[in-house]
């Protein structure tokens, strides 16, 4: 495996980034993967077959197989939750969960602008799918990302708080970031730590 663990990563080498849709999971995961020289794994890309067919629903075995294959190494940065499936797959090996939790009023405009941009540009997502725009707008529709963002927020919050108190996950550090400014400051801190010329920390080494 060419992805040797950087010696001074403050967040370990096996990292999952969770959070609401459009919270910036993939962007952050790609940045951290670059900083840590680790593969970037995007669960949505493993999940969606052409025609927005979701493997996690229609063929969970195949989804699990793909996720397992992508996370077998010693270092990776995963973007995406899918907790009901992934907790059994790799949470016992996680070092860090980064929870992107910006307020809904910041997330919702991003859902729309991202969908609009992707739909206009006909960008091929994960090599399989094209964004739909109008269904996202229908607040009441089952395919609406807006609807999804609003209705799942509360339940996912509760589940993540419960996970932080769950003895099964006591080995995991949960780092919660609640604004894009915090994300930037955090990534800059990680990049500084793993840079070869990183200065020695001024505080005493922990224990």
């Amino acid at each position, binding site marked *: 495996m060419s992805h040797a663990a950087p010696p*001074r*990563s*403050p*967040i*370990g080498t096996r990292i999952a980034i969770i959070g609401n849709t459009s919270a910036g999971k993939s962007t952050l995961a790609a940045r951290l993967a670059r900083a840590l020289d680790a593969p970037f794994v995007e669960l949505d890309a493993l999940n969606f077959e052409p025609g927005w067919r979701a493997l996690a629903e229609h063929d969970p075995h195949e989804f699990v197989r793909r996720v397992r294959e992508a996370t077998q190494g010693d270092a990776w940065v995963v973007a995406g939750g899918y907790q009901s499936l992934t907790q059994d797959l790799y949470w016992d090996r996680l070092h860090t969960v980064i929870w992107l939790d910006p307020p809904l009023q910041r997330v919702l405009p991003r859902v729309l602008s991202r969908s609009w941009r992707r739909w206009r540009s006909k960008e091929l997502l994960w090599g399989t799918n094209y964004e739909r725009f109008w269904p996202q707008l229908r607040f009441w529709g089952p395919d609406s990302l807006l609807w999804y963002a609003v209705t799942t927020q509360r339940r996912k*919050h*509760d589940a993540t*708080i*419960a996970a*932080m*108190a*769950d*003895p099964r*996950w*006591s080995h995991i*550090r*949960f*780092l*919660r*970031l*609640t604004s894009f400014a*915090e994300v930037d*400051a*955090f*990534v*800059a*801190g*990680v990049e*500084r*730590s793993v840079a070869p010329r990183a200065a020695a*920390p*001024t*505080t*005493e*080494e*922990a*224990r």
Partner: protein
Amino acid sequence: MTSTIGTRIVLVGPTSSGKTTLADRLGTALGLPSTDLDALYWKPGWVGAEDDEWHPRLRALAAGEGWVVAGNYIRHTMPNLWPRAETIVWLDLPLRVVLPRVLRRSWRRSRSRELLWGTNVERFWPQLKFWDPKSLVGYAIQTRVRMRNHMVATMANPAFARVRFVRLRSPAEIEAFTRAIEGACHSPS
């Protein structure tokens, strides 16, 4: 016993966020002594401890095998206490929750002339001067941004790579988390 959040726990957060109350609850649940740093710091007449007295006190506290400590004093605790912590619980409550509590608590304490930490009596009117960083209201507003910047930097600091951070952002979250910890402690396993 080991818990999800370990046995050496620091609680930080703005004034009136409920640090001391939560420290007592977690201490009870985990069977650990809880300490309020204000009580360790303040001497009669609102005189603070000098560094050469304060830092050894913090280090002696840190040396213990199990403790729950409520209080910020970050410039002092980061080098002297935090390196031994297993979990830092950050009560990151919004100002609209914290400020009314600051005022209610100061009013109650000043009326009752309750002796705080055996040394001092609360003053009320000076706390209202929001432009004065020495007032509690001014302090709550000014420390807010500094605290956030500091905590985010600490999360990315390799010296604290083994410390868990539990960031709770509403009274409901604090309650849910605390109940889950208490429940895990009382379960037969």
